[in-house]
């Protein structure tokens, strides 16, 4: 597969992506100035259905009112993901999409909005923390989310990210104890990704009734903004989450649109979500 193409190439080593996204500061700015009831953060799988289409879908998100973008780097064994995102990642890997290919998409999109990369521990750690984080920084990434790297295992990577000005965004769960939330909050960078429900990513009909409590506890523990993800698919759900949190993350529903309806479908969906938050 052509790695370059219109998906965008990485700048050479040593050059920082001094982009609009602007690392941790870019994330803070996006949460401070969105002009909606909450910041809107769609998730796209990099390289799904192919690299160029995922870049186009990311542009569509930016056009349609997204404030930040979560960009998945496909991984063979995504433990935190439900069927839609799993299938998208499997499809991308089978088509030959590489980490560098997705970082190229990140680089292109980081000119438009802060891009937060999401991938799994082995993809980050297998070549050493510095290596992946350095590459992500050159690609203009503002943040990094590693859902299978809980707080206990995250110190080294956080240090590496801090060194590059990238926010290592932690996850908090409804099952997290107060003690854990305090530690997660104290070390949070960028924002806290609050998982709405015990489970994997995927569209759900109902928001969990304990969500308000969960967000309240996370907010108490952290100084950075609190965004909520997992199970949010509709404008109505987004609107209700925005009453509680600073940011709304919509994943599987957007990935489904990217697969079924392409960049135009993503644009229409993100417009409707942004409208619900206006």
């Amino acid at each position, binding site marked *: 597969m052509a790695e370059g193409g219109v998906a965008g190439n990485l700048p050479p080593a040593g050059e920082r992506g001094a982009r609009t996204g602007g690392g941790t500061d870019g994330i803070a700015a996006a949460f401070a100035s969105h002009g909606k009831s909450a910041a809107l953060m769609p998730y796209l799988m990099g390289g799904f259905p192919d690299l160029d289409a995922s870049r186009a879908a990311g542009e569509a998100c930016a056009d349609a009112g997204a404030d930040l973008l979560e960009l998945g780097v496909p991984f063979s064994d995504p433990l935190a993901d439900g069927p839609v995102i799993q299938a998208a990642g499997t499809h991308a890997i089978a088509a030959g999409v590489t980490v560098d290919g997705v970082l190229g998409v990140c680089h292109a999109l980081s000119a438009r909005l802060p891009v937060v990369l999401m991938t799994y521990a082995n993809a980050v750690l297998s070549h050493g923390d510095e290596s992946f984080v350095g590459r992500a920084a050159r690609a203009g990434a503002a943040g990094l989310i590693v859902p299978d790297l*809980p707080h*206990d295992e995250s110190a080294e990577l956080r240090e590496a990210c801090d060194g590059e000005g990238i926010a290592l965004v*932690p996850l908090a769960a409804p099952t997290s104890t107060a003690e854990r939330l305090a530690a997660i909050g104290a070390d949070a960078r960028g924002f806290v990704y609050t998982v709405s429900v015990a*489970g994997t990513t995927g569209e759900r009909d109902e928001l969990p009734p304990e969500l308000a409590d969960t967000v309240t506890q996370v907010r108490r523990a952290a100084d950075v903004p609190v965004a909520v993800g997992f199970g949010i698919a509709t404008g109505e759900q987004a609107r209700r989450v925005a009453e509680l949190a600073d940011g709304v993350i919509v994943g599987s529903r957007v990935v489904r649109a990217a697969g079924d309806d392409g960049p135009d479908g993503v644009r229409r969906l993100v417009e409707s979500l942004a409208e619900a938050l206006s």
Partner: protein
Amino acid sequence: MSARAESMTPDSPGRASELEARFGDYGGRYVPETLIPALDELERAWLRAREDAEFQRELSALLHDYAGRPTPLYRAARLSEAVGRTVFLKREDLLHTGAHKINNALGQALLARRMGKDRIIAETGAGQHGVATATACALLDIECIVYMGTEDMRRQQPNVERMRLLGAEIAPVEAGARTLKEAVSEAIRDWVATADSTHYVIGSCVGPAPYPALVRDLQRVIGDEAKDQVLDRVGRLPERVIACVGGGSNAIGTFTAFLDDSGVDLIGVEAGGDGLDSGRHSAPLATGARGVLHGAMSAVLQDDDGQIVEAHSVSAGLDYPGSGPEHAQLRDEGRVRYVAVSDVEAVDAFRRVARLEGIVPALEPAHALAWLLANPGGDGVDLVTLSGRGDKDLAEALEFG
């Protein structure tokens, strides 16, 4: 080795106040935050149960009366003659359900009941761990769901029927290559959503802490028994202790008793598949880089991008791209030698041992036997763990040609 010696000296099992979360650089808990409280709860429960006389009495009684422990130590006379050494086989193949897997399944099912969990999930590849878990759940009347790749379901249809007969529900997994790796991933995803009601009975000494230590504790009965039996029989320790390694539970269960006996050569035999140079093998310890799979840092087969690659072995029970983190540590320390034998050598050993001893080994321990056959002479005493019986493998081995 000090942490290990402190926590798990052979003479004082389970005296530690905590379980190892790390084995040197390996192990850890690389799982979603959602699961961490469940892992903490499991660790606390096992530390209590391990010290609890009532729990230990109940487990010992089940292992003795129901599973068939202690298993015999058999001096394999014709095999000994063939290799010019004294070979003892630890007969885990004679256990109920046909493999060492029942040691772990009974222990974890009892633990689940003690924790008040009314639902158990498990993964299985060849079906041996699934059958063992379904058996333990039938015995203790606990709901049982076994995740299994659809390719494995096709290859292991009799074990699928056996698990259903035992009352387990089989949850087919369609992802990826539709084999063991995907089944483990799907079981973990189930557990992320259900941990308050559900215990995950993992089948090997892999996964996030405390699983590698928990499974080791439940399997170390193999080596503890065998050590006493060999001493009783020949009045000294064996020179070589040999076991096959997939995830590595029968091997760690065997080796643990001998770790502090520096004169005992410990050999873990991985599945070399078509050969280590072919890229089609299941030998992460002999070849693999450091990586994270299924919640632990260990030796993992992966490509340059950190994608986990498919393993290959004629033996479904060894067909896994990862290994237990304690094995990775023992490799780095040089305490255990990890070697690999090919599919061809393993199937050859499967046939030879059947003719020599009237014992049909499972294809997994046939790898340990193949290494033994390839390393004869010297007149010493060897202990080989015969981790399971080969009835399940007849079609596969005969088809192998």
